[in-house]
């Protein structure tokens, strides 16, 4: 096989796998460019990427969880807790590095709690994370009694506002996390084990996979991703808001599912999730640019999700 045909084959494969959803993304972009010429600009694409970063990163974590056939509804609350932990660290006098470490550790711990309750006590993850969603949301309000907390650290806030090599730092963060998640998922035996466990838990056990451990680690990944999202969000806002990230878990789930991740487990990719997140970002940005009233935005967003998932399901059926 020559190199060119190998590349062509890869393209054909990608089109088959992501055709439905890529089509949705391209269609949205075309429609918006048509309706507002300013949509198609480098600056605006930077905007979209930055706006979607928080959702995209949370959605990377969510992809792992859904791949396992589980769900994590506490992601939005973890985002808020992360920002608040960061703010409190600075209030406590810590520097940037330690504060970041503590924040990410907090995310890992919250994820671990979700994982342990799900894997060890055999409670359904839906109900576990509905419960911890409330618990973490309650926790975030305790230090300030519900008020937002200012973040007084120029490195932290620089993440959300400064650039690096001509690109906003936020975009670098998304890119790096995407590559890491993508490689771990598709190229390591941990990723392969996640697919096996999500596809057939029983079979995974018979193959000698420690499914409990994988489950706990994956909830921790989700927690860490959410914590990083929280860092980005609070850095963009110069503050930790106690209502930050409210219902972002639904956007993250929507991004993953739009990207072809199956809620039944066993199927999904990071590439798909990234495209899914972009669809959500483009949609929000485009409708703002067109001054679509809020309520219509809600309706259009719902419709676009339905159409995109439907196109995807159809494309997958046609393939078979």
């Amino acid at each position, binding site marked *: 096989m020559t190199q060119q045909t190998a590349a062509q084959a890869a393209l054909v494969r990608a089109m088959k796998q992501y055709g439905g959803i890529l089509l949705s993304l391209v269609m949205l972009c075309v429609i918006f460019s048509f309706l507002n010429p300013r949509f198609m600009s480098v600056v605006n694409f930077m905007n979209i990427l930055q706006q979607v970063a928080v959702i995209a990163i949370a959605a990377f974590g969510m992809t792992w969880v859904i791949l396992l056939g589980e769900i994590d509804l506490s992601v939005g609350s973890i985002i808020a807790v992360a920002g608040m932990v960061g703010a409190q660290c600075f209030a406590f006098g810590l520097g940037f590095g330690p504060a970041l470490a503590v924040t990410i550790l907090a995310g890992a711990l919250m994820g671990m709690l979700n994982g342990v309750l799900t894997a060890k006590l055999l409670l359904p993850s839906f109900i576990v994370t509905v419960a911890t969603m409330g618990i973490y949301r309650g926790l975030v309000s305790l230090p300030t009694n519900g008020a937002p907390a200012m973040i007084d650290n120029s490195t932290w806030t620089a993440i959300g506002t400064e650039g690096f090599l001509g690109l906003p730092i936020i975009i670098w963060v998304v890119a790096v996390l995407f590559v890491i998640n993508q490689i771990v998922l598709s190229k390591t035996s941990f990723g392969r084990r996640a697919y096996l466990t999500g596809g057939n838990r029983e079979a995974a056990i018979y193959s000698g996979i420690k499914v409990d451990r994988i489950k706990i680690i994956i909830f921790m990944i989700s927690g860490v991703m959410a914590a990083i999202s929280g860092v980005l969000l609070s850095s963009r806002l110069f503050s930790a808001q106690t*209502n930050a990230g409210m219902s972002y878990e639904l956007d993250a789930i929507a991004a993953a599912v739009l990207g072809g991740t199956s809620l039944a487990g066993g199927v999904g990719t990071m590439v798909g999730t990234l495209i899914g997140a972009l669809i959500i970002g483009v949609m929000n940005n485009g409708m703002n640019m067109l001054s679509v009233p809020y309520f219509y935005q809600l309706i259009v967003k719902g419709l676009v999700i339905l159409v995109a998932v439907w196109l995807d399901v159809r494309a997958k059926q046609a393939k078979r």
Partner: protein
Amino acid sequence: AEGIGASLLTQQHPFYIELADAMKAEAKEKNVALEVAIANQDLNKQLADVEDFIVKGVDVIVISPVDSQGVRAAIEKAEKAGIKVITVDVPANGATVTSHIGTDNFTGGVKAGELMAKVLDNKGKVAVIDYPTVQSVVNRVNGFKEAIAKHPDMEIVAIQTGITRAEALAAAQNMLQANPDITGIFGFGDDAALAAAVAVKAAGLEAQVKVIGFDGMKEARDAVDTNPVMVGVIQQFPDQMGKQAVDTAVKVAAGEQVPAEQPIVPGVYTAK
């Protein structure tokens, strides 16, 4: 239990935190019992909170309504049980309360519009970040629109919803991207205005765009002092409101007469 039961709209906003703190401080000062329940912007929860106050047997109920109309059910229940009701911040429609203490939001909106006209030399295109499901915000925005309408060279070119600070940031960025000739942004609250100021800075338009907010909590006032983009903020006085609410409640409990309306006119805060 005797004393005052207070049902507040939310606890995730500095305005209401200051209001609650002022109420608690004054209750301590006056030596009356005060219990605070948070409706979390859910009218049904507010009704349940009031029902539970009635069972507990408080003397007076202070409500900052989730919604002017829907709060009627809670007020009627309390009155049926013989408990007097005082509203703060948001007035009640369709039910009479013993007293209402609140900011005149419409006037505040007008003041914001006039300030905007002043800093922009009576001309230019402005944008608004709003929260259309909250009546007091609707009043502010209406006041703002009325003030702008008086200036023929001024125009509101975009209105977008941005309820949380994150949403407001995205809305402001996108409005600036869609309308690069915007010279002023009015945020319905401090969060919206602070987010707009971040968006202006991110877009590199500090020299061109002015931002005005509403609420005037400390973070926003500091921003007005230090950030030239934030040219002003309409300042509410939750501390006065909370103190006055408790004072009124104490008077009502003692059987004294109180005025039915106790408006608190908002101030305009500009850089020192």
